[in-house]
């Protein structure tokens, strides 16, 4: 099992959710975050000044998926979340050792 953390644009959530569902991925956890990437956010000009809005609202999706689903999920999120502009987001994959289900108390490893 792997944990996929995807930081995406909030306005793309619906599309991403739909795309994932079509690929059979239903379970997910969503967190409101603020983020900045290498571009350090967005630069705005104003009356004789520049302003850097460096922390923009993003959504972080956390998905626990089977190992073999990782690549397709990553691709799905990239495709559905892409606008082509800076700030589209990042995806990170990390190992999960064990999981449990609260309702049943089952443990999966």
């Amino acid at each position, binding site marked *: 099992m792997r944990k996929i953390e995807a930081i995406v644009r909030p*306005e793309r959530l619906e599309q991403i959710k739909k795309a994932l569902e079509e690929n059979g991925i239903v379970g997910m956890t969503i967190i409101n975050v603020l983020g900045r990437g290498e571009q350090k956010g*967005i630069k705005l000009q104003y009356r004789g000044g520049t302003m850097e809005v460096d922390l923009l609202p993003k959504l972080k999706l956390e998905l626990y998926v089977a190992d073999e689903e990782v690549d397709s999920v990553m691709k799905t999120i990239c495709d559905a979340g892409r606008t082509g502009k800076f700030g589209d987001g990042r995806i990170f994959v990390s190992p999960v050792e064990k999981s449990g289900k609260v309702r049943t108390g089952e443990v999966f490893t």
Partner: protein
Amino acid sequence: MEINNGDTAWVLASTALVMLMTPGVGLFYGGLVRSKTFVSMFGLSFLAFALASIQWVLFGYSLAFGTDISGFIGGLNYVGLSGVGVDSAPLAGNIPHLIYMAFQLVFAAVTLAILTSAVAERVRLSSFIVLALLWTTLVYDPLAHWVWAGGWLAQMGALDFAGGTVVHISSGFSALAIALVIGKRVGFGSYVMEPHNIPMSMLGAGLLWFGWFGFNSGSALAANGLAASAFVVTNTSAAAGALTWLLASWLKGKPSALGMVSGAIAGLVAITPAAGYVDNMSAIVIGGVAGVLCYTALLFRVGRGLDESCDAWAVHGMGGLWGAIATGIFATASVNNYTGLIYGNFHQFAVQIMAAGASVIYAFVMTMILAKIVDSVMGLRVTEDEEYVGLDIAQHGEKAYA
């Protein structure tokens, strides 16, 4: 005529009540937009109030209520409020001229605030200031003159008790024009833009309902039976509008609380021109129809992909249009000296339609021209990046919620 303290007390109170409608509009609209533009949206209403307040005392009041020039505009005799003092108002001898002027001021101000619907979340502040000053001077002031200060619509016999044409048709159809010029928000139609704080919109609607008693009942310019009658029909129409919009949304899916309060506003808008002419039973019809009509207009607007963001057109424009016509239908001599279609007075009905039509056309065309001019000279919109970041930060350097 001598100044009557009781009447003056009510007009003073009414003026304060109408003033509160502007924060009401600010909250109502502010709840409807995304949180990244709440400060901006609320701020536009506030700014509209400040701008109109100064414009009005400098020259707006004079343009609207100064000595009539060919039925089209007022003269400059009241510029800087010269001649506007503590004595009887020319058009309402029972109250001081200054409070008559102030009562008209708060109308001009809230009308400008309603207009901000069209530019929500994307307007450049400096362009808004210019457009607002042009609009209130060249659209609102003449319309107020036509209807309330002996202008050509008044001469024709058009009835508009508290501003169905002057306030609601004018702001609603002007909003439509501006929305067409400024264009949709980025992402409009492609992703959901939910109201970010519905309770704030509900509170705004509550303040509007409250303030509207000053708006309509205060328009009697006296604390008398007519004021009482206008008060009652105002409330009835609001309630009816709230209920019909609620039910209509229920039939389409789920009963919408935001729909209910929008329906109340629709009912308030529609009764505005009629408030001093119709009785309570007619008010149920006027408000009830307004709720459904404005809801339909909203659905139509959304269906057409038109981003007139907070529905000034659907609610104020269409509600005002219906109200102006309804005045010609339901006016009854039992309330005031006028009758409408249901009492066989086709003439009044026709006059109302003409007056409403003229207002629609004048407001829409004139505003379209003004908006285009401002857009080409200064640019109405912020950059796409600024819009994405949100006007609160981009324009004001502020955040609604820390």
